[in-house]
């Protein structure tokens, strides 16, 4: 998109003071600084983007550092390489740089900057001045500010942002026209390349990130619903979660939904805690239970069931990558068993993480050591642990400064250094995980050797023989660690409430703030106080009114999918859905290479060939990203449930539940009730009962077929396919 030249000139006037000259004095010699004057233009016009000259291999022989993180290298590339043709001070306009940028010479990237614009003149004048790099004493951008930093906006509103760079000499300059912008929630607010925010018509919150050179800042936008409502209803607070959620809903002018009915809660809590539907007997027992504390008791019961360990082991085995292809069958299984055992025994989460990080010795005897077998490079160990246990992604910083966060290459190699000494060796007693040698990592760009230091932390005191992973593990799991407890809380919230306070769940950073920071802080504090007892955290979340809300929206919260004003619909993981199909139809499923009788959530090997599991998005565990589990729907999934011979065989199986229930219940009303309890874990409403009875009765001779039809309809309904 072409920028309005007039606007550029106006902005130019406000931007120029950083170079201590006004445009009127352009004819006079002026002091340039490459990083302050030229790098921002290379950023703004996308020259150094990762799809262009910022690519690792550059573009057509011309390579810039991506987003300009390395001004010295960029200056060298422009002034020294290509036999000095890129900049030509004697005749600046003949410089390859200007010729290409302005389209005077063919340029794969097209025309980026037109002669006569302020930007063109800056580049020309810089070349004419000898294309200097500038003095090391020149002020540098220290940080940026974006204004407003916080604003409540009405729906459909627009709001321009202003970005100010603050230099090391405390000078300030408006750099809005050279900054880049991004919204973390485009459903609520978008931002264009000029920094103009456009609010949509959905209440909620968005963070708009501005980036200039290596600095980032964020502007938080809150969009309440428009209509004024009466006073916020007085609702019971089951615990602190509700108070903090309500606080936010008040600001947004949203009312939470009603409390869920027992049947809704029942199905939800079974699926969330044990990944398994209640049987009709279990459903009936709970639904007929008059005790006031029946919900809390049910949660406690579920947490002690073996399916709890099965289901949560499956979840952690995904991100901790129990990958049979890489580890081999025996080791992958031992690794999985370790994860499952830690969950079954409710090992405090911090302890489990420390065991994993510090694992060493014979791999046969130390199953968590298999984690290290997954990687060939120590940097990957560091970045995977950060992503899984801190929710912080540092992989970008392997090659360049993280574009949306504060992490530099030094932070990346500082983390890598902890794992540099990790190696494997085959010995007489099998493979050993060894930790020997210098905990130092080399930054391949600068050649600098970097001492270990955790993110934002300092190098631990070193004793050359010590395994510094121990101090790193202690740092990871310390109560003061700004990410560890938040990451755990956020992942649990995402699991139970259908959406993380931070989304994606493994991308915690200043420029992607939580939708409700007070709630995330409170949950993190709670996790620390509970000494990382995961079951206790689950109890707290499940006990909240927020978790127990109905999924039925009211007129104020229908568009809200961000603030926990109602229970969100959640896709069921492939394994859970398959188990639900098998359980409700009363038929088993055999997985290749797995003993008979195993349920899908117990199949530890994500590589077991199974069409249904693959179709419904089972992850392949090639990355530590939660996003590998694919929750997106497809036509083929729908077709499979509707038509496949496999599902048909289950519904019509002679020993299946449809045949059994039809035989056991000659009364159509009773049969209807049993089918509803089986598939939906609830009693039918009066209307549903009438309509189902009618269908069964009118089927005449073939009552069994009619029952199959009913079961088929339930199995293909939204109510069955989702957890709500």
């Amino acid at each position, binding site marked *: 998109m072409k920028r309005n030249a007039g606007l550029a000139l106006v902005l130019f006037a406000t931007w120029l003071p950083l170079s201590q000259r006004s445009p009127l004095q352009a004819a006079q010699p002026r002091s340039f600084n490459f990083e302050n004057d030229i790098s921002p233009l290379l950023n703004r016009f996308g020259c150094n983007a990762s799809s262009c000259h910022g690519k690792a291999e550059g573009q057509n022989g011309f390579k810039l550092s991506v987003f300009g993180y390395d001004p010295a290298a960029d200056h060298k590339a422009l002034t020294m390489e290509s036999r000095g043709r890129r900049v030509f001070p004697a005749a600046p306009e003949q410089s390859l740089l200007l010729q290409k940028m302005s389209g005077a010479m063919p340029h794969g990237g097209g025309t980026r900057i037109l002669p006569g614009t302020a930007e063109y003149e800056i580049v020309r004048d810089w070349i004419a001045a000898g294309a200097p790099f500038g003095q090391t004493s020149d002020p540098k951008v220290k940080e940026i500010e974006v204004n407003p930093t916080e604003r409540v906006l009405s729906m459909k509103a627009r709001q321009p942002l202003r970005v100010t760079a603050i230099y090391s000499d405390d000078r300030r300059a408006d750099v809005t026209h050279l900054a880049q912008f991004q919204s973390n929630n485009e459903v609520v607010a978008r931002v264009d390349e000029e920094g103009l925010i456009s609010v949509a018509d959905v209440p909620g919150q968005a963070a708009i990130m501005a980036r200039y050179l290596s600095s980032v800042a964020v502007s938080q936008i809150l969009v309440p619903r428009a209509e004024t409502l009466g006073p916020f209803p007085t609702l019971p607070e089951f615990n602190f979660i509700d108070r903090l959620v309500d606080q936010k809903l008040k600001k947004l002018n949203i009312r939470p939904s009603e409390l869920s009915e027992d049947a809704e809660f029942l199905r939800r809590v079974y699926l969330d805690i044990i990944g398994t539907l209640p049987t009709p007997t279990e459903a009936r027992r709970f639904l007929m239970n008059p005790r006031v504390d029946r919900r809390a008791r049910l949660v406690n019961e579920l947490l002690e069931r073996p399916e709890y360990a099965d289901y949560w082991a499956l979840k952690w085995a995904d991100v901790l990558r129990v990958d049979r292809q890489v580890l081999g069958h025996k080791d992958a299984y031992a690794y999985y068993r370790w994860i499952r055992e830690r969950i079954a025994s409710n090992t405090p989460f911090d302890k489990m993480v420390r065991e994993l990080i510090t694992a060493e010795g014979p791999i046969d005897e130390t199953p968590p050591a298999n984690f290290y077998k997954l990687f060939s490079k120590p940097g990957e160990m560091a970045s995977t642990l950060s992503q899984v246990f801190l929710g912080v992604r540092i992989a970008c910083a392997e090659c360049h400064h993280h574009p949306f966060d504060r992490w530099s290459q030094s932070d990346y190699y500082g983390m890598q250094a902890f794992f540099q000494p990790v190696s494997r060796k085959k010995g007489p007693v099998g493979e050993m995980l060894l930790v020997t040698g210098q905990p130092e990592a080399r930054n391949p760009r600068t050649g600098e050797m970097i001492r270990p230091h955790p993110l934002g932390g300092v190098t631990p005191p070193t004793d050359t023989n010590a395994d510094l992973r121990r101090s790193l593990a202690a740092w990871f799991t310390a109560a003061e660690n700004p990410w560890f407890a938040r990451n755990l809380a956020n992942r649990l919230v995402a699991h139970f409430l259908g959406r993380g306070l931070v989304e994606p769940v493994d991308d915690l950073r200043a420029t992607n703030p939580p939708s409700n920071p007070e709630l995330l802080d409170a949950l993190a504090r709670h996790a620390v106080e509970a000494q990382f007892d995961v079951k206790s955290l689950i109890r707290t979340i499940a006990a909240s009114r927020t978790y127990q809300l109905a999924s039925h929206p009211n007129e104020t919260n229908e568009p809200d999918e961000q603030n926990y004003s109602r229970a969100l619909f959640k896709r069921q993981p492939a394994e859970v859905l398959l188990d639900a199909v098998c359980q409700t139809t009363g038929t088993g499923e055999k997985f290749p290479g797995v003993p008979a009788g195993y349920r899908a959530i117990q199949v530890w090997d994500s590589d077991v060939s199974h069409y249904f599991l693959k179709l419904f998005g089972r992850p392949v565990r090639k990355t530590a990203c939660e996003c590998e589990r694919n929750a997106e729907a497809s036509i083929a999934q729908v077709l499979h449930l509707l038509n496949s011979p496999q599902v048909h065989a289950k519904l019509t199986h002679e020993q299946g539940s449809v045949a059994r229930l039809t035989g056991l219940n000659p009364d159509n009303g009773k049969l209807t009730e049993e089918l509803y309890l089986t598939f939906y874990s609830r009693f039918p409403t009066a209307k549903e009962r009438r309509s189902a009875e009618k269908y069964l009765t009118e089927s005449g001779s073939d009552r069994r077929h009619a029952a199959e*039809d009913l079961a088929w309809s339930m199995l293909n309904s939204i109510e069955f396919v989702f957890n709500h």
Partner: protein
Amino acid sequence: MKQIYRYCDGIDRRDFLRIGAVGLLGIELSLPALLERQARAAGASGPKRDVSVIWVFLKGGMSTIDTFDLKPDAPSDIRGEFKSIPTRIPGLHVSEHLPKVAGQMDKFSLVRSFGHRNADHGPADHYMLTGYHPIAGFNPNLKPNNQYPSFGSVIGHKLGSRSSVPPYVCLPILHASAGSAFLGPSAVPFVIEADPSAPSFSVPDLAPPMALDASRLAARRELLASVDRYQRAAEVRANSTARSVSVFGQRAFDLMTSPEAKKAFDIAEEPEKLRDEYGRHTLGQSCLMGRRLVEAGVRCVMIDHSNWDTHFDNFTIMKTQLLPKFDAAISTLFRDLADRGLLESTLVIISGEFGRTPRINKDAGRDHWSKCFTLAIGGGGIQGGRVVGTSDAWAQEPAENPYGPEDLAATLYHLLRIDPKGELRTPEGRPIALSNDGRIIRELV
């Protein structure tokens, strides 16, 4: 189809092709993407020709020195035993075993200076089907193994579906590099995992079980609508994930009941004579299916045909098995598309992952050769009867105007009115160029 020889990596790829085997990977768009695309389509204008693609992928790698770029003057251990014959285009010769193709030479062109730098099956496949050479960490055994989205996925992602049929269809199996990579599930191909030449050919899961008669199906559908209490309720409106399942549910029924889809998949509807002309084998009937799918609105059909990996006994296998099938299928495809006025709007690309060594090995076979081979390409705005570039005397290297997978990507996107200079975004927001610096092959368009 009977194959007695194996791929050099020892895997018998026939194993993957089980006739009528159950298997269907979905393609569809997420709802927001769908709406966005519809909105865009409503406002779209520009040249009218809306080009589809049929890619005939000759897996294993076709020997082009024995087919489209013969070297009669080369020594016998290079030129092989096949003679060249003239085609409809004066001065343009092809193999004596392609007489029918020679008669359609006005409808497509040959890029004889095509090549790239990788002569291993897995990475070369990926390179040819995405325009991107794989990077570190590539695992060819994954299925799909895409580090970058396949052309079909990009087309589906960029252009969406035209009708009730999916935009991107693979048959008779999913090629391992035909996946969507970071474009995600909304861009995965719809796979017809079944051999259209089999008498029992049908699309898996598309039709309800045979045991159900029409009246019961109608009753079921009505019953589903009444039982599914969330379907038209506030719950579905308020939950974007449920909304997309609801939309897919509708689209699944559309696909099941769509006359277009039903027609497209019902290959038995074709006149026997035309089916014979295409050839009663996997390649022939897959090409015919490709034409039917394009007619029904599919934007990209990917036909994965095996096995061209002729390390042994190249000449016998070529002249007795592969080339007669190829000659019938490809010549009929071009003629049929032209007869129906579809050639202008259907780009046909014919290539394997690479070619084969000019020098014949001790087993009378030819090994992998990626530096120079011939790409056959026609329709969709490509000028027919042209030869672009030349190979050197022994077809070892391009002699002039070398082109590669990046250039094929740029040309393909250009013909489909997708800006080759455009970008895709990974979920992390990283921009990826659509074509990796490819140049449009101007001599073709």
